[in-house]
């Protein structure tokens, strides 16, 4: 019995050590001479993604699928519209030139402050909005360069490996809140072909796969 307890304690300690403070191993790098993460800020006219949102809320599973349209407008504002396959809009978000956020439309089922806040944050981090290079810090870990920007809550890391942006992490005080894995960036400023948002606290994921043939004007 004692042996069993010791073993479980050890396992808990190992788990805790592995889980907490994932950013403790980051080694600071002097920012002078290091380029900014904003060189990866997406530049696009419009992109259409296949989108699947999956998760659990109050022990019930949910799943939403549809299309996500990202559009950059001539007045330098950005719109993101999520609709289902059959054409019904779930939400329509916008940011103006100053990156101020507006909800143009959202269905009642999603119209909850926490939901809007989370979706806005996900998209804002992906689109690299409201980031100030004056506050940018740099770290290195496992041959990857971490660009850190402070957020209202926690901070965001843009992770660069092999001279390309490989991921984005929203870090809380101790743990990672959201991991955004990206793949298939044609150029430094292109939106990736695939994007995977994993919310570690809220327990839901968002998968995006770029659709090549898409919207017509």
């Amino acid at each position, binding site marked *: 019995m004692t042996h069993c307890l010791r073993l479980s304690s050890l396992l808990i300690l190992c788990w805790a050590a592995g889980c907490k403070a994932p950013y403790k191993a980051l080694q600071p790098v002097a920012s002078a001479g290091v380029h900014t993460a904003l060189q990866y800020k997406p530049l696009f006219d*419009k992109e*259409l993604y*296949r989108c*699947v949102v999956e998760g659990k809320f109050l022990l*019930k*599973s*949910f*799943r*939403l*699928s549809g*299309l996500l*349209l990202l*559009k950059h*407008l001539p007045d330098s504002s950005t*719109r993101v*519209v999520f*609709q*289902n*396959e*059959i*054409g*019904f*809009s*779930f939400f*329509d978000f916008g940011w103006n030139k100053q990156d101020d956020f507006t909800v*143009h*439309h959202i*269905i*009642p*089922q999603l119209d909850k402050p926490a939901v809007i806040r989370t979706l806005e944050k996900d998209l804002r981090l992906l689109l690299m909005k409201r980031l100030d290079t004056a506050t940018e810090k740099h770290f290195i870990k496992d041959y990857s360069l971490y660009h850190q920007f402070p957020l209202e809550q926690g901070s965001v890391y843009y992770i660069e490996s092999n001279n390309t942006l490989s991921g984005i992490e929203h870090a809380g005080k101790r743990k990672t809140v959201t991991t955004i894995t990206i793949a298939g960036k044609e150029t430094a400023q292109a939106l990736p072909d695939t994007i995977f948002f994993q919310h570690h606290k809220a327990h839901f994921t968002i998968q995006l796969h770029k*659709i*090549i*043939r*898409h*919207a*017509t*004007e």
Partner: protein
Amino acid sequence: MRKILTVVIFSCLAIMAQAQSKGYTPLKNTDAFRQALNQANASKESVVSDFTQTKHLSLLEDKITSKGQFFFKKENRIRIAYTEPYTYLLVMNGEEILVQDEQKTSRISTRNSKIMQSVNRIIIDCMSGNVLRNPDFSVAALESNNAYLLSLTPATDAMKKMFSRIDVYLDRKHFDVTRLTMTETGGDFTDMDFKNIRHNTPLNDALFKVK
């Protein structure tokens, strides 16, 4: 999940909108129209067609287009299969519904949800041309030289939150639904145009299998 599916399914009614009622005038003889519609529907055991769906985003001047095939089999079976630029399947068979995307299949029964029952019924009514009998909408019947237009205004609060109007266009000759239009409360609208409409093609029941 049920609420979300309701939105998904209900939006199936989607389809084109905006004062397409131009050139349409109120129907002069509603009884004669109703009789002719019933007669035409009585002779259709099944309907198969191709469709093109176009979502109009009012503020962005953008359109999102998709294509697929539509199947209807009496009395209450519908299959809508999107094939471009993504695959997505919606099957309605009586009280049961199946939704399938590239990764997952979901099944739902409308038995315990009044909203889902309404949704199920309006879709089938639209596709089969029986919308005049639907109690969840007030219907205005109009006509032009080439077509009839049934303009549906939601009568229940749940549907009013989603749509401002649904328009069903029928050709005068065969009373086929040639276009469905859903106008959302925010002003965006979706058109579903039906082409290559065939009647009474033998359809295997497996197409409408939901279990």
